[in-house]
């Protein structure tokens, strides 16, 4: 029993196949509370698919994903979010036709149902919370700006903000610094370091310097399978990892 409660997320035997092609194959790993787990691996290793499976975007063929002892594989996407799992996509997905304020407001965790959304009011609590988050993500001066006019980096931050406002226990980020300028990258690292403190995070990232900075443990994926798992130093020294990255 004690062992069960040690982990926030338990992924066991996770498998998905697309017309016979196994994009993720019998994958198991465990994430502890307040841990920052980084998934690395070459292109096509199935990293994004793993996140898709956990958050319900892709239906698994086999296996189990337990979050706080709830089986996520049987739940709908929005139910998974309500359970406390947040997901950021690789390409920034914000609502371009809405303002930054409205973008954050939609993610505000209240009024999820149709009638709840109709009855939802912008009260002071909502406004204060949105302003607080906007400050965290460096967008406090752009609240009335249409999201379409933000820079690529600012859109990424906005999407991170949209997740933060929901205060998820598990946050999954897919390449949060990809395509950013050096300055933006630095600011993002700072932002991530701040937000990963009181929650568990799973990050997909290619930037090794960045990974070393934030990772508690690292999973190396290759062809849908776990190649190596452990601390950054451990996987760096793993001959199998070296073979995949430098071989051929």
């Amino acid at each position, binding site marked *: 029993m004690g062992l069960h409660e040690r982990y926030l997320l338990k992924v066991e035997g996770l498998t998905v196949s697309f017309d016979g092609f196994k994009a993720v194959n019998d994958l198991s790993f465990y994430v502890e509370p307040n841990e920052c787990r980084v998934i690395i691996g070459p292109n096509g290793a199935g990293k994004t698919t793993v996140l898709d499976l956990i958050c319900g975007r892709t239906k698994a063929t086999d296996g189990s994903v337990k979050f706080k002892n709830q089986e996520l594989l049987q739940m709908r996407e*929005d139910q998974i979010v*309500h359970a406390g799992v947040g*997901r950021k996509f690789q390409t920034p997905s*914000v609502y371009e036709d809405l303002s930054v304020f409205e973008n954050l407001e*939609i993610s505000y965790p209240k009024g999820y149902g149709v009638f709840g959304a*109709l009855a939802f009011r912008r009260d002071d609590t909502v406004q204060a919370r949105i302003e607080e988050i906007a400050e965290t993500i460096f967008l406090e001066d752009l609240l009335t700006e249409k999201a379409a006019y933000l820079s690529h980096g600012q859109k990424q931050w906005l999407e991170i903000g949209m997740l933060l406002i929901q205060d998820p226990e598990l946050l999954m980020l897919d390449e949060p610094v990809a395509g950013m300028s050096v300055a933006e990258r630095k600011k993002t690292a700072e932002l991530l370091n701040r937000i990963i403190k009181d929650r568990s995070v799973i990050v997909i990232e290619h930037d090794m310097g960045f990974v070393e900075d934030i990772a508690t443990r690292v999973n190396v994926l290759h062809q849908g399978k776990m190649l190596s798992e452990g601390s950054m130093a451990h996987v760096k020294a793993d001959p199998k990892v070296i073979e995949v990255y430098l071989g051929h």
Partner: protein
Amino acid sequence: MTFSKNSLFTRQELIGFIVLAAIIFLLLPAVLDNFRLNLFGKYLTYAFVAVGLALCWGAGGILSLGQGVFFGLGGYCMAMFLKLEASTPENTSIQSTPGIPDFMDWNQLTELPFWWVPFHSLTIALIAVVIVPVTFALIIGVAMFRRRVGGVYFAIITQAFAAILTILIIGQQGFTGGVNGITDLRTLKGWDIRTDEAKEVLYFVNAFLLFGVLLIAQFVRKSKLGRILIAMRDQEDRVRFSGYDVASFKIFIFCLGAAFAGIGGAMFTLQVGFMSPTLVGIVPSIEMVIFCAVGGRLSILGAVYGALLVNWAKTSFSESFPELWLFGLGGLFIAVVMLFPNGLAGIWTEQIMPRITKLWAARAGAVAPIPATSTEEEGAI
């Protein structure tokens, strides 16, 4: 920094509503004779559908090519009541079965079908005007949106429903009046709806209902639900992974559009005096989309102007150059997609408003800062 907190209107939107109200309640009744006023009343019944489409399609990105189904269902519910009232045993004494609608008698029916019986009651008929279209929309919506069918697939399937219902109505002549529809409607609880006064009263009833619908639509657009719709149209997955059950929002807005269309259909029956499958099928359904598109997709007020203008143009053209009308309508479809994707509302906010603002500023002699228009403002005027 200020946000329009929870107010239903911005100042601009309020002016827009007042102007439209002035046109519909004062200007049109003042300048039009009774015949034309009734005609405009008919156009306004299409505006109900167009407003619903502005929510479904403009905001939510759900294009339904089957709104005629809901318009027709609402209209038929009303027509069934009126027909039963018109078919008293005295009025129909020459029939082989007196007391049933004439077309049933012609088709050798000897008894009122069981599903016609409740329509003896006006209350039930009025409830059915909304409930029947909404139930249909609910069934279609649940089946499609739960399975994540959207976009062009949804459009094609709703179009198929328009085809199915038309064929069904025409084929089941004995129950529905067939291709002629339900005609020869006379009184509503003894009140003759064919007189000039009645038509004038009905015009105003229709106008009031339309404004009721517009207020509901405005409330929805201004609520968080309205913003979620726009968000869904742009980034459906993001909305889903922000914790919303996307399908239920789509179902809701589709049903709301169906309810609007049903009310419009019922008012059509009352003002025009008949309901027929020609208002249900593929062609009228897609024409209803163009009313909304001409007004400017997102704009609920624009939808009303679109319905008025297109129909007025249709009547004027068909009177003088019938062969030109289809060219005109076809061209309109193409132009509104290629040249004016934001329709009349777009022309207003992009071309006319800035000029007025400039003129205003010049006259005031001061360089007043132009307020940044937010999305919602662009949308609603």
